[in-house]
């Protein structure tokens, strides 16, 4: 399965400024694994030591939240994933 992860500009420093990244995987977890293979610095940012998604991040699949149990959610060919982090500044 081939999906696309769309990142906001703030992640650009970890991805050589690429914000639309093609990944392979049939679950969110597999897609993220492929993302980390391409951009290893993102793994520490997004995952806990136990390999779970950090609390401050949410994953959306085609604009719909993958919460809870994000990592096991299925991904279909052509799906678009977004990684969103909590912001609270005013």
């Amino acid at each position, binding site marked *: 399965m081939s999906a696309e992860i*769309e990142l*906001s*500009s*703030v992640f*650009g420093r970890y991805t050589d400024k690429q*914000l639309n990244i093609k990944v392979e995987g049939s679950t969110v977890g597999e897609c993220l694994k492929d993302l980390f293979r391409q951009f290893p610095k993102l793994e520490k940012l997004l995952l806990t030591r136990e390999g779970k998604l950090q*609390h*401050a991040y*949410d994953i*959306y699949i085609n*604009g*719909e*939240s993958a*919460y*809870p149990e994000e990592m096991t959610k299925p991904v279909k060919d052509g799906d678009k994933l*977004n990684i*969103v982090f*909590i*912001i*609270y*500044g*005013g």
Partner: protein
Amino acid sequence: MLTEKELQRYDRQIMIYGFGEEGQEKLKKARVFIAGAGGLGSPAAIYLAAAGIGTIRMADHDTVELSNLNRQVLHWDENIGEEKAESAVAKLQKLNSDIRIEAIGETLTEANASQLVADSDLIVDAMDNLPTRYLLNKTAIEKGIPFFHGAVYGFEGRAMTVIPGKSACLNCLYHGIAVPKVKFPVIGVTPAVIGCIQATEVIKYITGLGELLTGRLLNYDALSMKFTEFKVNRDPNCEHCGNL
């Protein structure tokens, strides 16, 4: 009833199809609570005052610092060291002397939030930390009044409108997650956009125009100049609104 002066002052918006004198009268009767007189609160308050909101309550416990001035446009060089709520109210009253503007310099807490929001018709969430945002979200739900969320980080911003019992709330969105408060990067143009989106939503809600930003999180990425929307469903187990 609108006065002759008000008819002149708001002529251009009264002209908008569906707005009319009726819409203007609704704005005049409205009482808006703005939590935070900072980066988001400044543009939101300026445009709501200019639009003729009858009563604006500006709440902020901070004093103006030099490092605020790149974004908190209600405060100027001459206001450094002054209370933000007072500084904001002084400008807003000069902008529109026909409306009522109140300064609340107290810290919002679990104990006083409901009392400070008082009989306001809605809450604009222009805070700078998650705990107070959750507190205001909860207060809005308890009072059954709408909550207009906005947040910024660097060149990125977000907004969502909450109608208690009808659309997802802030707690549904972030599942009550707490993240430590740290100094965040931001440039003034980002909260300018988001604060104006919040003010737009307030005006739409009061006048009954258009479609609100409910059940949708709007994400603004200024560097790629893109708006993205995410669907946000109500959480039946939400600690704030699950029982509604």
